[in-house]
């Protein structure tokens, strides 16, 4: 399991290649990437705050839970914090498994749980000011399917 919380940008291609290259006997690698969206057309930046220490623990617990539910050989969670511009990559997850179903499901599980169980908070900065992004009921509801 590879858990990383960092301010610096990451190279999606390099990370995905390195993750795939270190696997043995895995038939499937799934990756997901989250990108800063500018829904209103006026977003200057997305500021991401986190809780150092707890963040890494929470992500590791989520990854461990995924590994206990699905046959995954490895997982990567990489999440940025700090000030990000529209279209920058915020985070990625990768899962490796012998079979694609486990890799896909484990990746979805990681995403659902890190959205509302890992201590990150997003703030949208526009010309009009800055607003904390509210948690959505759908994100909480998404946990119940697991």
């Amino acid at each position: 399991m590879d858990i990383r919380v960092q301010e610096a940008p990451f190279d999606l291609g390099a990370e995905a290649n390195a993750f795939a290259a270190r696997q043995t006997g895995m038939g499937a690698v799934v990756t997901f990437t989250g990108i800063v969206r500018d829904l209103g057309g006026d977003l200057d930046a997305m500021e991401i705050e986190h809780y150092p220490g707890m963040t890494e623990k929470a992500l590791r617990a989520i990854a461990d839970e995924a590994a206990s539910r699905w046959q995954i050989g490895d997982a990567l969670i990489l999440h940025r914090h700090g000030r990000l511009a529209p279209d920058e990559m915020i985070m990625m997850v990768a899962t490796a498994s012998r079979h694609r179903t486990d890799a896909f499901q484990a990746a979805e599980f990681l995403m659902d749980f890190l959205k509302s169980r890992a201590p990150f908070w997003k703030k949208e900065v526009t010309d009009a000011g800055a607003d904390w992004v509210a948690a959505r009921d759908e994100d909480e509801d998404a946990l119940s399917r697991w």
Partner: protein
Amino acid sequence: MDVLYFAWVRERIGHPKDRVDSAPATVMDLVEELRAREDRYAAAFSDLTVLRVAVDQELRDFDAPLTGAREVAFFPPMTGG
């Protein structure tokens, strides 16, 4: 114990951290003690349904005991991903 605040809770209270040397028995007791400090604390803790709490970096309920706790954090629902 250290009491940490994140996101709008930190902004509303005006700083990221307090030191509490009394020994509140539960999270709720700690909340009551903080509410009594100043108006900005009372405002930040006026609606607990929009707050989450972690005790020693684990998510807990507001009735959780604080025996031996070193770090308590208050923050809004998380928005990662």
